[in-house]
């Protein structure tokens, strides 16, 4: 069996009396899109934070390509190849689109400690940035100030920044958030084509997108994974219907 690109092993996290993450073990296999769904308050953000390194679990571990990254901080994990997009866009609002994407390149190529040649005149950085922008259709807006972008464009920019890292795995936190019908369709199509480059762990509420994209779905309820399987298996699973899908009907 192929080795998972990303795996968590019995992650556990409590906040006082609240057990937010209950021995969660998920895997992300090469070439797949693995969606994590669950009702609000299920602990999805907490799980993402533990995978990405901004929150330390009480117990359990995370590994990337077989290497244990549990002791690494967020930035170190990013350097190991973990790219994430945020639920609420995290972008440098005063800067241009190009500057934002070049930032990704700087992180990816360890160029942070270069003090002389302008970043925007460095061919390597520019090429990487522009190709990412071209893929999300934002190349024309490269000199626009981020604050002036529409919501949909900012979501695209989030993805572009993640692309520049040429990551081993993507962690996408509700990429469809706030996108209308058209935008969601475009994003869904885009993510579909992305899985070949690196597998995606997708946290989403948009069920159409989830069922269209996901190879596997894990359902998180009250911090615990109650089911993992293909879209068809999950739809048929009684426990899931009761806990989550049933309520939506």
């Amino acid at each position: 069996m192929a080795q998972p690109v990303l795996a968590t092993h019995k992650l556990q996290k409590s906040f006082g009396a609240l057990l937010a993450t209950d021995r969660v073990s998920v895997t992300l296999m090469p070439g797949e899109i693995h969606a994590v769904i669950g009702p609000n308050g299920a602990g999805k953000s907490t799980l993402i934070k533990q995978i990405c390194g901004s929150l330390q679990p009480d117990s359990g571990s995370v590994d990337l390509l077989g290497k244990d990254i549990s002791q690494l901080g967020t930035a170190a994990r990013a350097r190991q190849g973990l790219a994430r997009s945020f639920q609420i866009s995290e972008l440098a609002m005063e800067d241009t689109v190009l500057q934002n994407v070049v930032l990704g390149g700087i992180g990816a190529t360890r160029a942070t400690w270069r003090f002389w040649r302008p970043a925007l005149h460095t061919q390597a950085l520019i090429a990487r940035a522009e190709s990412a922008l071209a893929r999300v259709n934002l190349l024309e807006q490269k000199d626009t100030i981020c604050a002036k972008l529409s919501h949909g464009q900012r979501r695209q920019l989030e993805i572009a920044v993640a692309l520049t890292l040429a990551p081993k795995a993507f962690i996408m936190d509700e990429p469809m958030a706030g996108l209308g019908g058209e935008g969601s369709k475009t994003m869904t199509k885009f993510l579909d084509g992305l899985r070949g480059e690196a597998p995606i762990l997708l946290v989403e509420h948009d069920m159409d997108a989830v069922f269209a994209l996901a190879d596997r779905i894990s359902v998180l309820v009250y911090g615990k994974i109650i089911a993992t399987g293909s879209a068809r298996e999950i739809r048929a699973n009684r426990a899931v219907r009761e806990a989550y899908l049933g309520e939506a009907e």
Partner: protein
Amino acid sequence: MRLREPYLNAAVLLGLIALPLAALLADAPFTITLATRAVILALAAVGLNIALGIGGLVSFGHAVFFGIGGYVMGILASHAQTYTPLDLGFVSIEGTKSMPVIWLSAMLISGIIAFFIGLLSLRTSGVYFIMITLAFGQLFYYFSISWPQYGGEDGLSIYMRNDFPGLNTLKPLQFFCLCFGLLCSVLFIQSKLQSAPFGLALNAARQTPLRAQAVGIEPLKLRLLAFVISGAITGLAGALFADLNRFVSPTMFSWQLSGELIVLIIIGGVGRLMGPVIGACMFVALEHFLGGLTKFWHVYLGLILLCIVLFARGGLIGLLTGKDGAKV
């Protein structure tokens, strides 16, 4: 009226050179001294702007570095003028009145102290950071008052201006050119830093630290380096200031001075390259002209400052170019 920023920058620099030359022709050496004062304060504020405007670090204790620079100069020069070496126990340092040596020492020591202060304070953020930097300023202030060997509360006088090879530093215009040259060099270095990956990363980390981390950049390390560079530059300004006045005193460590440095930056425009320069010129001009009109000119300064913060946040550069200052 919208000016392009590079033209504005060039105009300011030209104006800053033209003024003392005109003063020389008009035989008004005091104006040259005034211009020198503006240039030195600008240099101190440029230092702070690197930490504050680009890095987003609201340091209310930058006077620490200004004072350290001043006292490094004062200590080295006073030992030179009394021909007694500085005895540190394990090593004995000859005093010196050579400007290049003094400048390098001031920058080195300020930088080192900035490193340690940064190490302790950069783990905090927001109000805590402001308070810690303020507290460090007070720490040095009280320390310098209690150090009788170098004047204590009364300060230390240095009788002769220090030496620079090839120049007669006592001549106002020559000293001005020296300071102006340093300012231009530092501005050049800053503009290089700002457009380089380091500057872009630091600027982004100010706006969105989460995003910076998510691409593999560690904001803490960036900020520490920025703080050290910032401290070194302000330290250099302190040494020059002490040389200009031929006097060092604990007031160089005062929190009022820390506040004034921030005021200089905001008058010009936070994060803008020439912001501190414009701010310093305006401040010195206000100090001179308003101060000549009334003893209580600080009231007007306060009112102007209030208006800028509430209505013209981008400072003068913001007003002229239509661009906002950096959001700190």
